[in-house]
């Protein structure tokens, strides 16, 4: 099997680093992709579940643009809706009826939603959610989960990061995931100051196994917070529409007050949404939060087409089944080579880790070998399935996995 090299990616990176801090920054930074020479940095084309890098290497993509690609790159129905709307009007001086139509659609689809508010990125709406919670309760403190991620606003960054002040964390309380006693203790100590809790529907940190909510966890969390007069915010930016089209809370059987969506909502077109219960509609209307591109109509049209297609395909179940085939295949392949592969999180966006070591080095080596052969896997972040992945893609991926295990054993010796 051919292994890839990345001369053009490297050449582009050398140009990039002269004019862009880090060369490529944020979650696209090559830094956590270990070993870095196994990974491409720049892409030229993408179609369906595949992309081609600037060296012409073809990859079956299991990162899906880190979530936004859910129906496949260049999906005809979504692109057509976007292009049609763009031809009519995208940026404009007044709002588009498409915004209203999309809000109506979300209110119909999502049991928690009595209204919807739109922005461009996930952090826009997680910040909006926190402001709404503070406005509604008149309280300062926000409870969140250690290792959780809700965007890069200073209050949400881990302490110590550059540009973040100690004061930014003054009203943020972090508790462990699935720890009701910790929440109970926090409510006992800070109850009257707690505006709300923000957490992802299940715990999907980087560099660590993902964790589903324990039985009854969310129901108790919502009960405890509501009893305390606090707001429950689900950050469904990463998982939204991959687990359930009514919001991931429906999969786990609970109802929050606010849900933040982005990533998969428009199959790659920039959009985010905050939806909420009727009791918070007035409070949401009082919070001023806006952005230059938040009313561009093309993304609203793309989102409606994307969500209709996800409904038609029963997207979450399809992706779950594809994820099951992929992860079952990898677990079995790993076992045939003497490795134990641990699968965690949800099957439509699984996190996989070779459990034969505790420092991730085997995992990094194996993901690198897979990527060199055309299955784009990162070792630090959960992967994503899309409805565009096919059984043929998965079979091809499993062949690559097999080759990668062989290459790894040759390189590192059997573990």
């Amino acid at each position, binding site marked *: 099997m051919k292994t890839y090299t990345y001369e053009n990616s490297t050449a582009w*990176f050398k140009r990039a680093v002269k004019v862009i*801090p880090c060369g490529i*920054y944020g979650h696209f930074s*090559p830094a956590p992709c*270990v*070993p*870095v020479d196994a990974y491409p940095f720049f892409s030229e084309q993408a179609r369906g579940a595949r992309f081609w890098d600037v060296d012409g290497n073809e990859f079956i993509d299991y990162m899906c643009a880190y979530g936004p690609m859910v129906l496949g790159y260049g999906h005809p129905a979504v692109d057509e809706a976007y292009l049609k709307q763009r031809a009519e009007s995208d940026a404009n001086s007044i709002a588009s009826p498409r915004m209203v139509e999309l809000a109506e659609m979300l209110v119909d689809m999502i049991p928690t939603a009595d209204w919807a508010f739109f922005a461009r990125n996930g952090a826009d709406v997680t910040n909006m959610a926190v402001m709404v919670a503070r406005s509604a309760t008149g309280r300062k403190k926000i409870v969140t989960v250690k290792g959780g991620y809700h965007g890069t606003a200073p209050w949400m960054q881990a302490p110590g990061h550059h540009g973040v002040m100690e004061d930014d964390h003054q009203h943020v309380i972090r508790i462990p995931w699935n720890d009701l006693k910790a929440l109970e203790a926090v409510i006992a100590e800070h109850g009257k100051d707690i505006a709300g809790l923000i957490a992802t529907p299940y715990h999907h940190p980087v560099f660590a196994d993902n964790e589903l909510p324990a039985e009854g966890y969310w129901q108790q969390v919502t009960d405890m917070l509501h009893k305390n007069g606090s707001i429950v915010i689900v950050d469904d930016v990463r998982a939204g529409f991959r687990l359930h089209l009514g919001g991931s809370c429906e999969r786990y059987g609970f109802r929050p007050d606010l849900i933040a969506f982005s990533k998969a909502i428009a199959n790659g077109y920039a959009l985010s949404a905050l939806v909420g219960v009727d009791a918070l509609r007035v409070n949401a209307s009082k919070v001023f939060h806006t952005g230059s591109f938040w009313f561009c109509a093309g993304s609203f049209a793309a989102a409606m087409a994307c969500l209709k297609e996800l409904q038609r395909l029963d997207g979450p179940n399809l992706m779950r089944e594809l994820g099951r085939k992929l992860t079952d295949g990898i677990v079995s392949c790993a076992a045939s080579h003497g490795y134990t592969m641990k699968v965690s999180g949800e099957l439509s966006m699984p996190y996989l880790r070779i459990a034969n070591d505790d420092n991730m080095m085997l995992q990094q080596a194996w993901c690198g070998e897979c990527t060199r052969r055309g299955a784009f896997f990162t070792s630090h972040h959960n992967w994503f399935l899309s409805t565009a992945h096919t059984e043929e893609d998965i079979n091809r991926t499993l062949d690559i996995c097999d080759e990668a295990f062989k290459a790894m054993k040759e390189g590192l010796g059997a573990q």
Partner: protein
Amino acid sequence: MIYDTLKARLNLNAVLRNLEELPDLDPETAAMIKAWDISIRFRVLRGISARLQFKDGRCTYEENAKEASDVVLFFLSHKHLNGMFDEKAPPIPLKGFKRLGFLKDEFSRVTKRLEYFLKPTPELLEEPEYVRVNTALTLSTAVHAARELVLLDPVAKQVGRQTPSGLLQIQVLPDGPNAWMQYDGKGGIVSGRGKNGTPAATLTFRDRGVACALFNGKLDDFGAVALGDVKLRGLVPIIDNTNLILDRIPAYLQ
């Protein structure tokens, strides 16, 4: 208060401590201390203390030293000790009055030599021999400073607490210098020179030039990683957090 205490701990336990290593790296220093047989203790009132012992051409550094010494330099406060390092306040000699001349001349020449290697100019960083010594000393300073920072710096303390337990091995190819930091998962660090056990993460520099450029802020670290000049393996959060901790050094030492 904490600022002065931490700065004093850094000045002694991370910077002055390099006198242990300097004679091995720099023949000029080795020649200077070759015949010395003296111990010097630095003592702060109700605060930190440390002891340097020069004997048989070697220097050893001891933290929290209480052992008798030939010379005892006393400081009324951590700020006073820092004043000595900034050449703004003299120490109070409690013992070894006859050796004051030695301190002013010979010992001062050695500390100046250390300062020379730790404060590079662009021209000096063009000299391979200087780069060799600077890289080794800067790396040692960094790993020892990290240990102090997670104890007292408010930001580093938080970062340290968030860092998983495990050994970070830092290595410069092809033949060093190397250093390690062992995180205990509760915010504490033990560190040292060389290699130590099975790492949870490794940070590998392609060569001394890359390491030196990075240590002296002349290289975009993310860019260096992407181009393979700096390689990460294992539990990358340990490396990320170490960077955040070390980024606190300039708040105390210029």
